């Protein structure tokens, strides 16, 4: 299969059963062979825990220290929570999350296809404030397609 070939090229040797299981495990973890995350989740708070597990694996494998790991988890969590709470009506929707590492910079995008709603209520701007202070760069683009938040942060202790 194409996947087996990719792994073959990746490892420079003939795939065996253990490698196929490794592909399966990587798929389940949401992290692909290129060390990137490309997942779509339901706009449901119960999806946030599994999403954090995927990011913890990815960040651990990328050499992020515990503080940077926490900072990225919170920033991604805030972006996703905002989509869960504000993008869709009670019927729900989906959120697309992509994460790549370009050299020493982590770039994560969190996109929904909902309609924009300004944060409301006490402390509702806190999520935005956390994202901006924990990441090096935050871009929020809203159009008729939905809202995309792009988070960028440089690896603090390159290994």
């Amino acid at each position, binding site marked *: 299969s194409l996947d087996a070939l990719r792994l073959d090229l990746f490892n420079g040797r003939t795939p065996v059963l253990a490698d196929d299981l490794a592909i399966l495990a990587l798929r389940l973890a949401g992290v692909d062979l290129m060390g990137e995350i490309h997942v779509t989740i339901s706009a449901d*708070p119960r999806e946030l*825990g599994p999403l954090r597990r995927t990011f913890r694996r990815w960040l651990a494998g990328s050499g992020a220290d515990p*503080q940077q790991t926490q900072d990225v988890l*919170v920033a991604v*969590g805030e972006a996703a929570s905002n989509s869960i709470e504000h993008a869709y009506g009670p019927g729900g929707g989906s959120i697309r999350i992509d994460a790549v590492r370009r050299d020493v910079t982590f770039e994560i995008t969190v996109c929904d296809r909902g309609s924009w709603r300004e944060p409301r209520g006490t402390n509702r701007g*806190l999520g935005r404030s956390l994202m901006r202070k*924990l990441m090096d760069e935050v871009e929020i683009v809203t159009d008729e397609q939905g809202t995309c938040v792009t988070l960028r942060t440089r690896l603090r202790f390159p290994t």
Partner: protein
Amino acid sequence: MSGEEAAGIQRDGNWVNAAWSGDIDISNATGLEQAALGEMFNSDNGLTIDLGLVTYIDSAGIRSLLNIRRLLEDRQQRLLLVVPSDSVLRKALEIGGVIAVISVYSSMESAGNHRA
């Protein structure tokens, strides 16, 4: 597991201790907040929330902590927070204004010394 066990709530005379653990986000913050507040009597002096075993907290958990603080303050009851000094949670708690308005201690023992 009952809600109280999940929220790690224990009574110590007229003081309530809540040991939160794991990840705190929009899926469980309000439940933890209500479990802690639900244990408080008018006659209680205060509440200590131990975040020592918490592995993640975001604005949902921060909002809950600030809500608890406001509700207790209205009743002249105290809120103490335990956050280990090397905890990765401190940064978000600082940005969220928690450390500025809630008394934070690095251990349950040091928090216990400041109940009076």
